[in-house]
């Protein structure tokens, strides 16, 4: 998990439960990899809300916010007012 911040590491750990045989990289497109199904969609929302104490709103429903580990961590940073991830 070199180069990942704490938020990104947590996101990777969560997503790895779905993508067991794949070492997911920060910028890999999880939709393009075919890893996202209907089970993941709502669980991913619940995960980021609970883990990072944010509320995902209807305005956040944009695939680009959930496309990769870095995209999700950027959403978390925006919602928490934290500095944007590297």
């Amino acid at each position, binding site marked *: 998990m070199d180069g990942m911040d704490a938020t990104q590491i947590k996101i990777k750990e*969560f997503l790895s*439960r*779905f993508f*067991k045989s794949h070492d997911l990289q920060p910028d890999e497109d999880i939709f393009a990899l075919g890893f996202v*199904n*209907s*089970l993941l*969609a*709502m*669980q*991913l*929302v*619940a*995960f980021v*809300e*609970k883990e990072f104490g944010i509320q995902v709103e*209807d*305005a956040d*429903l*944009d*695939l680009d916010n959930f496309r990769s580990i870095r995209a999700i961590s950027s959403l978390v940073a925006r919602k928490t007012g934290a500095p944007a991830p590297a």
Partner: protein
Amino acid sequence: MKLELTAAQRAARAEFRAFAAAEILPHAGRWDREAALPRTVIDALRERRYLGSNVPVEHGGVGRDMIDYGLLTEEIARGCSSVRSLLTVHDMVAHAVLRWGSPAQRQRWLPALARGEVLAALALSEPNAGSDAKSVETIAVDAGDGWVLDGRKKWTTFGQLAGLFLVLAQCDGQPTAFLVERESPGLAVRPLQGVWGTRASMLAELTFAGCRVPRESLLGRIGFGLSHVVAAALEHGRYSVAWGAVGIGQACLDACRRYTAERRQFGVPLADHQLIRRMLTDMIVDVRAARLLCLRAGWLRDQRDPGAFMETMAAKYFASTMAVRAANDAVQIHGANGVSDDYPVGRYLRDAKVTEIIEGSTQIQQITLPLFDFQEL
């Protein structure tokens, strides 16, 4: 670890039980035969704030947590699964609006739903789309100042009474959710007769023929209608149906306790026959197990834990299949009386079967649950 209800939860359950005993149980058989609920019971639910009861206080609701909600649902279903169906579908829509509504949509609809001023229904299934919800054929076209919907919905529970529908349609080929008011021009609602389970749930068929709805009817974003909006509604519905199935199981047990104590064959009460006791034992343990699964799912839902999705599905799968087993045995124990309108167990069997079909059929749970479980390995 403490697996017991708090004093407040026990008190709430006693309140729900007393309500069901007074307002529902004495009438449920008649409502089933008449295939309709009277306005009086809906008014009673409204006055008790039992409709939309999960809506938080800040949105005009009473903010009932998931455990209290589950206890309420069980007690209502113990009396009448059709009344439980009303709670289920109304609350599914309220949950979806709470979860994915814009601030304006929440402000407009949640207080009204929480007070039961407007009844809501989910318009998802169609003649050609049931479990395969992403293949709905209803279409929504962007008309600039609003949307135009065309298509048909079927099996819309309480569609006969609802003033607000959560509708899934294809918008440029992407599943998209809309909040559609009953009075929308181009929407026709036709009662659907002839069902034999949850018979008083007042199903309707909806026809959208150039139905124009305002711009702000879009709930969530285009393309997220199934994966997020309807998924949230269905997840809440599964939880509600799971508790409803526990209520049916408990009702079967109640009926069988009475009957096996009173009915005598071969010179002794039925309860003294070992094969009858075996059926009662299965029923007792099954109901308790299902209730525990529901409590676990409710606790996780209150924690907003991502694991709540799997636990809710597991609870719904077990509870609905349990309800069918329990009701099947309850009819068997009642013998010929079991298939007569003089006893409620025939209704329980018909209603139990419905819980295996709605909010994800037993087979959908069977192909999905292992996928969840494998994620945890």
